[in-house]
């Protein structure tokens, strides 16, 4: 976890420096008072200072026993990839069918359910999303190539 925290600290530092750089290109003070770069510059400087503190503090300390990757981190990663695939498919499949696909796949992946209950839940989900969000709440969700 120490290494992860160290990487986090370096990221904070880089972000802070980037904010300082980009906000220094904005007007710091105008004739109407503080400009658009005023607050971001200070925020960037504070983030950078905190980043430096975090990094130095971690370099001085001994590492803890806790690991960054846990037993189930892999499962979390699989769900994350499934979400990415679902989002990529949403314009093609539409929200009701796309998200139903997500439910079905994750039920199978995480819950180790049989295909039949997964498929049934997915169908109910698709119908539910269609009627609740599209028909009842009239949210203009994309319906995909099938048009449902």
């Amino acid at each position: 976890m120490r290494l992860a925290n160290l990487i986090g600290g370096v990221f904070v530092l880089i972000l802070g420096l980037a904010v300082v750089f980009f906000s220094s290109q904005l007007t710091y003070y105008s004739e109407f008072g503080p400009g658009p770069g005023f607050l971001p510059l200070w925020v960037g400087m504070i983030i950078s200072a905190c980043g430096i503190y975090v990094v130095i503090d971690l370099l001085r300390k001994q590492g803890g026993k806790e690991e960054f990757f846990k037993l189930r981190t892999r499962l979390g990663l699989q769900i994350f990839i499934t979400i990415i695939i679902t989002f990529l498919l949403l314009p093609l499949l539409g929200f009701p069918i796309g998200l139903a696909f997500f439910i079905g796949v994750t039920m199978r992946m995480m819950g180790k359910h049989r295909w039949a209950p997964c498929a049934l839940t997915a169908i109910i989900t698709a119908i539910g999303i269609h009627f609740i969000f599209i028909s009842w709440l009239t949210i203009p969700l994309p319906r995909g190539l099938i048009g449902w």
Partner: protein
Amino acid sequence: MELLNNLYTGFSIALTFNNIIYCLVGVLFGQIVGVLPGIGAPTAIALLLPLTYKVNPTSALIMFAGIYYGVAYGGTITSVLINVPGESSTVMTCIDGYQMAQKGRAGAALSVAAIGSFLAGTISIIILMAFAPALARFALRFGPPEYFALTAMAFGLLTVFGGEQPIKTIISTMFGLLIATIGLDVVSGMPRFAFGVPQLLGGIDFIVIICGMFGVAEVFSSIEEPEEGEIIKQKMHLRDLFLTWEEWIASRWAILRGGVIGFIVGMIPAGGITTASFLAYLGEKRFSKHPERFGKGAIEGVAAPESANNSASISGFAPLLALGIPGSPTTAVMLAGFMMWGIRPGPMLFKTNPDLVWGLISSMYIGNLLLLLINIFLIPAFVAMLRLPYTIIMGFIVIFASVGAYSVNNNFFDVWMMLGFAVLGYLMRKLQYPIVPLVLGLVLGNLSENSLRQALLISGGSFSIFFNRPISLLFIIAAILAYLSPVFRWALKGLRQARVEVASNSESKQ
């Protein structure tokens, strides 16, 4: 007399059939959310917020408030029965609540939690009704310097209550402020941190961030570290829910003290319901003539934190309604709701939207009464929900988060952005960067920056404007003290260690 008039106005709105239904839906949903793992009040409200564009704001806020205090009731069930807090605000309830359940007094623990929450909540509503308008009248004196100083104080208080690593709290707050600056600058019209991406010119919508950081991020964390516990199987009859005379005597003052502590802590920006329940428990243990009973099933150990968390969830509305400053992530999400409906909470809200304010406050009486009844008669139904597979809950969260993010601007960019913030939220949780300061920085960022710029414009660029005005000076001093609190803590810790070392040295010499 004015209070009675306000009460009459409020109840005439809250008691309409429509609003009673919204209140009932809110408290039931809140109770369910409280019971289910991996979803909290801010997530639930954030996921529902985009779906209430077309709903009357008063009704929607009544429902959201119901969710907020309903969650505190629901979280108790898991704390008592499986020793897993459904909500962070019910962590302290686990200690004695679970012990009571093991001794066969689960019914009494749940009952005292419901009764305590109801009584403390009612007291809190009464004080809120008297206090909030007074606070709003006081806030009418606020100008830009006071508002900037107030937000600075709120950010400072986050370092006091934000956990053991104040530096990470500050980083998180700054992240929030930074995200708030993305988009066109309202004064100069210049784009900031948009990097030529047209979708970023309007800024990143709060709903997108909340759906990601609280909704989907929570899913990742819950998959990785599921909260599991075994339900204590106990046949619960209605008579088991009644307290014995001794139990009632032991808990009555705990309820009152918890309620008062909850009200005060709930009002402090960044105080929150978790801190309230924590302080109420510690306070009760200190007040008790038999502190050794705590941790072994003392009923006061359930009554005090449960009364405090409900009281705090209600008093948290005082700074939100009267000042426009949210004190907790849930009220921060509600502030986003106000913005969505084009309503600005703050001192003028009591004059411009009295129906909304008093309708909302009065609905809390009804909501608390409904929750009391629900918690006496429907507990088995909620216990049954604990058996709902997490895959289904997770699926619902992802569905609501994706639909919510898409519906903000009807584009996929926001859906991807939501996923990006989910990853950020997950990593922040994992590396122990608190999320709440980011949310408060985000919602208060614009108010803070605009007030700062207006104040400096008035003063011709002189920062003395923040020190020349008494209210502003008071807030600035509080902010400085709050920011320095880690230094004080560090110094105190060093002093204590030095004393211990001196004592042990003198003992070894003897």
